[in-house]
C-alpha cells in the first residue's frame, strides 16, 4: 500500500498531490479490512500537514452527505439496480462451470494430439 505511486506518502507537494493522497487514504480507510500498519501510516500522514486534514475532511463531508441521501427514491432505485446487476447468479456460476469443462476437454484434446 505504501508506495509513492499511490501518492500516499506525499508530504510536501502541490495541492493536486495532497488531494490525490487524501483520495487514496480515504479509499484505504473505508476498505473494511484495514491493517494496523495502514492505520498507523494514515495517522502519520494525517497529522503531518493541516492541508492533509482539510483534504481528508472534505471527503468525509462528501461521505456523510451522501449517507443522508441513502433512502431517497432515486437512490433506492439505483441501489436496487446495482444489487440486482451484481447479484451472484446461479446462471453465471453454471456457465462458468460449463466453460471450465469445455476448456479442460479442449486442453486435453490438444495435449493428446500433440503427443
Amino acid at each position, binding site marked *: 500500500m505504501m508506495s509513492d505511486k499511490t501518492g500516499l506518502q506525499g508530504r510536501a507537494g502541490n495541492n493536486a498531490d495532497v488531494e490525490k493522497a487524501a483520495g487514496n487514504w480515504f479509499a*484505504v480507510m*473505508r476498505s473494511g479490512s484495514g491493517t494496523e500498519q495502514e492505520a498507523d501510516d494514515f495517522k502519520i500522514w494525517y497529522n503531518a500537514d493541516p492541508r492533509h486534514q482539510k483534504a481528508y475532511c*472534505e471527503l*468525509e463531508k462528501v461521505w456523510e452527505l451522501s449517507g443522508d441521501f441513502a433512502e431517497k427514491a432515486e437512490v433506492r432505485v439505483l441501489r436496487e439496480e446495482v444489487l440486482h446487476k451484481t447479484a451472484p447468479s446461479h446462471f453465471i456460476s453454471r456457465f462458468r462451470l460449463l466453460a471450465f469443462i469445455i476448456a479442460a476437454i479442449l486442453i486435453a484434446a490438444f495435449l493428446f494430439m500433440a503427443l
Partner: protein
Amino acid sequence: MKISALSRKSSPPSPERLPAKKTEKRTSVLINIVSRYNGALFRYFRKSTHDPCDAEDLTQEVYCKLARLEDEEVLAKTEGYLFRIASNVLRDKNRRDRVRARDKSVPYDDALEKDPFPSPEQIIDGREQYGYFLKALKDLSPRAREVFVLSRFEGLTYRQIAQRCGISVNTVKKHMVKAMAGLKAALEG
C-alpha cells in the same frame, strides 16, 4: 470542515450573534485545545474502538461538542473535562452500535441522528445538494457507481464488492477513489 457540517445539524448558537472579538478568541482557544489534545484523543478512541476511522470520527465529535459551547471561559474550563466529554462520546457511540446491531433494517445511524426540524434554508440547500449528488452519481462510470453504491449504501467491504463484481480488491479501491473525486467535485462546484 466536519465541525461545521455536524454542528449545523443541531443548530448551535450562530457565531454572527456573538461579538466578533469574542468569536475570534473563542476560535483561538478551540484551536489551541485541538492542537494540544488531538493526538491524545485519537489514541484514546483508537484504543477503545480498534478502528482508526471511528477514532477519527469520535475525535471530531468531541470538537463539535466543544465548538457548540458559547463562551470562551466555559471553553477554557472545559479543557479539564475533555476526556469526560470523550468518554460520553464513546458511550453514545457504543449505544448507537448496539441499536444498529439490534435493528439491522436501519442501515445508517446517520438516519437516527438527523435533525427532525431543519430550517427552510437547510431544506433548500439540501435539495440543491441532492440534485448535484444524483447527477454526479449518474455521471460516474458504471463500475465506479456500482462500487460506491455497494460500499456507501449497502455497507459491503471491498473484498465483498470485489467478489460481487468479479474484479480485484485493488480495482475496487481505484473505482472508489474516482467515485469520491467525482462526487466531491460536483458537490463543491
